[in-house]
């Protein structure tokens, strides 16, 4: 799949933002006043910024409101509804915390649940696609949810929880790669089933339908980006999980040093998750590539 910057930025940032909103809604930390303002500004900035970035890949963004109508069948529609509901409920909760010094816990819990639901529905947009075997596995939503909670824990300064989430998310990442590398072969789809000619011999794409490129090849076939997979995986796992974990468990004293290290951990984690998301798209092979003799 084409690793479009808009979807990479969207899934990385909104995952982070909704992860932080989940923690804030559950009262970890139960902040009020100016401190709360900074926390919520960060969370809403990431979540809304990510959502806005996602509209850049639309052909007709002015009609985006229509995407709220088909929740009965469409995960993309469900995601839009969950995202708006989460932002509205958490907006009310934030208003209470920032301006009125009170926590409306019912709203917080509902908002936290909706925030997680948003991340889950985002992941299901990809997971539902049988055409992309690497995404069509239960580990995909597990990966999106653990990444979001890890980012949220780091941003929320949940010192006790964050190292555990980092370790779990890193393990999920490794499992996702291991399983994903076998997904296409395991799906049973090949050029033989694509053309229906597989039982008469080995099928080879002889001539493409046209000499130039087209929408399908630009969108779904991205062989160039897979060249540096192992290096990028090493970068993603090191920056995203290993180094932040070290930052958090280093025995340092003092308020400033701890905060600086925590800030560094967040930045490293974001860079690592972005690298992982780039691979998530660039490595995803769509079955339509088979018709062109490509992957």
């Amino acid at each position, binding site marked *: 799949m084409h690793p479009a910057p808009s979807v990479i930025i969207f899934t990385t940032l909104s995952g982070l933002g909704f992860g932080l909103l989940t923690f804030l809604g559950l009262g970890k930390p139960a902040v009020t006043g100016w401190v709360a303002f900074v926390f919520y500004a960060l969370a809403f900035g990431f979540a809304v910024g990510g959502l806005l970035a996602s509209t850049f890949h639309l052909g007709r963004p002015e009609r985006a409101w229509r995407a709220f109508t088909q929740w009965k069948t*469409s995960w993309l529609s469900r995601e839009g509804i969950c995202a708006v509901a989460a932002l509205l409920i958490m907006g009310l909760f934030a208003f209470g915390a920032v301006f009125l010094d009170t926590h409306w816990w019912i709203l917080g819990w509902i908002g936290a649940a909706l925030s997680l639901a948003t991340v889950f529905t985002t992941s299901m947009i990809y997971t539902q696609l049988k055409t992309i075997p690497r995404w069509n596995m239960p580990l995909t939503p597990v990966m999106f949810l653990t990444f979001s909670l890890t980012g949220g824990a780091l941003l929320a300064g949940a010192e006790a929880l964050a190292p555990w989430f980092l370790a779990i998310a890193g393990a999920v990442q490794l499992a996702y790669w291991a399983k994903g590398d076998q997904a296409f072969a395991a799906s049973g789809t090949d050029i033989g089933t694509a053309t229906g000619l597989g039982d008469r011999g080995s099928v080879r794409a002889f001539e493409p339908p046209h000499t130039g490129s087209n929408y399908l090849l630009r969108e779904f076939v991205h062989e160039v980006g897979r060249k540096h997979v192992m290096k990028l995986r090493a970068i993603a796992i090191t920056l995203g999980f290993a180094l932040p974990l070290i930052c958090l468990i280093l025995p340092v004293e003092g308020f400033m040093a701890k905060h600086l290290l925590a800030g560094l951990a967040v930045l490293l984690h974001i860079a690592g998750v972005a690298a992982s998301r780039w691979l998530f798209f660039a490595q995803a092979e769509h079955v339509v590539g088979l018709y062109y003799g490509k992957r």
Partner: protein
Amino acid sequence: MTQLPTHTDRKMGLVIDLDTCVGCHACVISCKGWNTENYGAPLSDQNAYGSDPSGTFLNRVHSYEVQPSPCSSQPDPAAQLVHFPKSCLHCEDAPCVTVCPTGASYKRVEDGIVLVNEDHCIGCGLCAWSCPYGARELDQAAGVMKKCTLCVDRIYNENLPEVDRVPSCVRTCPAGARHFGDLGDPDSDVSKLVAERGGMDLMPELGTKPVNKYLPPRPKDQIDDQIDVLAPLLTPVAEEPKGFLGWLDKALDKLPGHSEGGSN
């Protein structure tokens, strides 16, 4: 709504004969022409006369080589070239419809045709992601998703002569490799053709239940009784020039000098 109908009155679709298709791409061009001038946004081209031309097509013809494995009866089997037209298969369980967030994609109850309401499409591209067959292309000029309409503006069009009330690709095909009809009716011509020739689904393992069927090509190096139905017509008609041409040939041979192609 993007919920699929549980039942469609008819299952209109195409039967594509891989044995007959000669790979001329006439269907591609006639499709592009009809669908640019009629229903919905035109099928645009980008940089059409430049170094990297590209455009929207609803129908494309691939060519594949099939190399059979050697066996005792055929120790050295010949490879076969198969031309392979591909367009929307109007699936019964169309994943492109259910993923649509806006309701722009829908499957018609009356004839099973999968269509896009271009006024509601936001161009998110998710339906193209969900289609295994590459049947949907996002038009770069209009920003909306384009797909085969089964020429819905031809097949019911009473302003056209009856013979033209079939999809443009079917009407155009000079080899008769494309057939149009109701695949839900077991007594229709297309259903009989599918039954007789062993029509097949593409990627059946994905569970899309395509309506369009493909007729497998025959192994052309194993047809013993007759090389070609046209073979009797292909024998040379006049090996020896007769009449005036015969006299001219002989007269010219008698002139001094060298004649190409030898003498009689």
